[in-house]
């Protein structure tokens, strides 16, 4: 155990943890939205993220930013990121929608019990992952560095780079956008109504199927944005990339209170930071053990997560 190391580098570990946590948080939003409305854990969401990471590399290569390409200008970087967010958001959103149509809607129409949905979700996840594995020959796909990190400022001895700032702020921006949409817009009101009480919402004229389509698209788009940030940060993707990120994001959602948008954000950031501290104290190989222990301990005292679960009442 190495507490001294963590104490000495607390600020630096916090910054790198927040960066990773931002990506968890964006993916967690997809789990939370679907759970909030349908009480369903969409295990295929990790593959929705994976599709986004590949779409990003494909769109970059199509725009001339393939392997071996030189670093573009600042304007070029912004353009590439925007193009990638749009493309990956669209691809991931579309994938999520297809999963909903193929794996969930037919079951919902037949009033299948929750266990059947769970199996269908796992099946969709495996099918998508294996399809991607077959198409890519299980080979990783790399991409050139888009952003070359430069230290912007130091805070408590931690050097903060433009890459880290960019990832954290992009994630926050996406989250604020989604939160505003759900809480302020007409469509968002529909989502909250269905989350609170589907029957009454239907009586009030809310189209439940449209709301469900909407949340899958929104969750998928968030995963798409997360996948762009992931690609910029990691620079390599494989067909199985979604598995670990998906588990972590799901953990983040549960930690914050599943079904709660603010909970997903808090859970994601917290998980990123805690696992970084854990890795510092116990060694890198204990990172996930620490993360899940924290989850169990939190759930012992707050069974509904830190902020409680409820998309419908997530206005406070």
């Amino acid at each position, binding site marked *: 155990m190495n507490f001294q190391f963590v104490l000495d580098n607390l600020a630096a570990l916090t910054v790198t943890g927040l960066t990773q946590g931002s990506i968890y948080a964006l993916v967690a939003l997809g789990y939370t939205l679907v759970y909030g409305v349908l009480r369903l854990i969409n295990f295929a969401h990790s593959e929705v993220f994976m599709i986004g990471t590949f779409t990003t590399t494909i769109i970059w290569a199509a725009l001339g930013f393939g392997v071996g390409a030189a670093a573009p200008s600042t304007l070029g970087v912004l353009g590439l990121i925007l193009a990638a967010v749009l493309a990956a958001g669209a691809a991931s959103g579309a994938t999520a929608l297809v999963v909903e149509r193929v794996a969930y809607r037919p079951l919902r129409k037949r009033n299948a019990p929750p266990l059947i949905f769970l199996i269908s979700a796992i099946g969709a996840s495996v099918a998508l992952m294996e399809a991607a594995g077959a198409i890519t020959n299980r080979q*990783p796909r790399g991409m*050139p560095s888009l952003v070359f990190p430069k230290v912007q400022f130091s805070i408590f001895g931690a050097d903060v780079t433009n890459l880290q700032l960019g990832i954290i702020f992009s994630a926050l921006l996406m989250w604020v956008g989604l939160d505003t949409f759900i809480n302020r817009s007409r469509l968002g009101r529909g989502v909250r109504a269905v989350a609170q009480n589907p029957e009454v919402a239907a009586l009030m004229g809310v189209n439940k199927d449209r709301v469900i389509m909407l949340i899958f698209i929104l969750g998928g788009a968030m995963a798409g944005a997360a996948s762009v940030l992931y690609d910029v940060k990691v620079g390599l993707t494989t067909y199985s990339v979604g598995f*670990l990120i998906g588990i972590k994001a799901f953990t983040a959602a549960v930690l914050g209170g599943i079904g709660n948008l603010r909970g997903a954000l808090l859970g994601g950031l917290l998980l990123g930071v805690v696992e970084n501290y854990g890795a510092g104290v116990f060694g890198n190989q204990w990172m996930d053990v620490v993360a899940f222990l924290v989850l169990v301990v939190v759930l012992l005292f707050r069974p509904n997560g830190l902020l409680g679960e409820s998309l419908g009442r997530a206005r406070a």
Partner: protein
Amino acid sequence: MVGLLVGAAACAKDDDGGDTTSASSCDSKIAFFGALTGGNAQLGINIRDGAKLAVDEYNKANANCKVTLVEKDSAGDPAQASGLATSVVQDAKILGTVGPAFSGESKVANPILSKEGVVIITPSATNPALSKQGDKTFHRALGNDASQGPGAALYMKNVMKVQKTYVIDDASEYGKGLADQVKTTLAAGVIGSGVVKEQQTDFGTLVQEINKSGADSIFWGGYLREAAPFLKQFREAGGKAKFVAGDGVKDPKFVEGAGATAAEGAILTCPCVPPEKAGGTFAADYKTATGHEASTYSAEAFDAANILLQGIKAGNTTREKLETFVDGYTGEGVTTKFKFQADGDIDPSAVAVWAYTVKGGQIVALERTPTS
């Protein structure tokens, strides 16, 4: 099934073309065993072409007593390996194999081949466990995954002259084995160590620890999937330490994933001889014969086939005699000086570990690593 059909077809064709008029000791065959189709066919084709070159040269020099090369296409699939191995065993004229090419299929095929005495010389299957299966006719014409550890460490110590090394492994059989050997060889030169997890992509804490440790070099025992994002993040965090890794990382995908800038100057070791650096006129002969450059494992396959052919030429035309010959064989090939241990692994002194580096986004061969 496809593999069996192709193998059988190749058999039939070769039988027709074989020299049936000569004495019975002149119709010996050796088999190529590996993937010629499927996702990993390229390595198999490299090996087949290397072995074919050896056989063709032999037949030109010994036109009165030719040896036939039988091609057994496994598609790299362990599920097909047992059927294919049985077909090799049943052809009494096949004395030995160049292959099986991959570790997965070797695990299945070697016991079947070995039980009937077929001499196995693999030019490419590097899983250390293969020589521990008790297959008495197994031989490996190159070092196993674990044997590059000392070479890599000596290269760091004597050529790169590093003082303070941080050793990282991925807890896999391959990665940990390699890292442990580097630790043993570098001894006091190791100032810290870490373990990464399979599929880990975020290395914030580890990068921080290494930078604080003042290490001048990093040894990575693991695969490229984790190494690429690690090195990218390490360089982005301002890390200057030299990066050294084994053949699990020696792949263009590593440069792609880490980015050419971050990967520049990384040292990658491999118990494989760069074909363009192989001895004699091998590289030129290969190009003339096949029309393309020799690639990974071609030279090892050429050597493996030649050992079998030398045995046959010396009159060892039964499986039993050929096995005795190969067990006692010492001689210079194009890749190294061969000598096998009792378990079939190449003698540690004969393991040719090569250092490669990343230069301008390409992996290029540097030199053979020191042996002491």
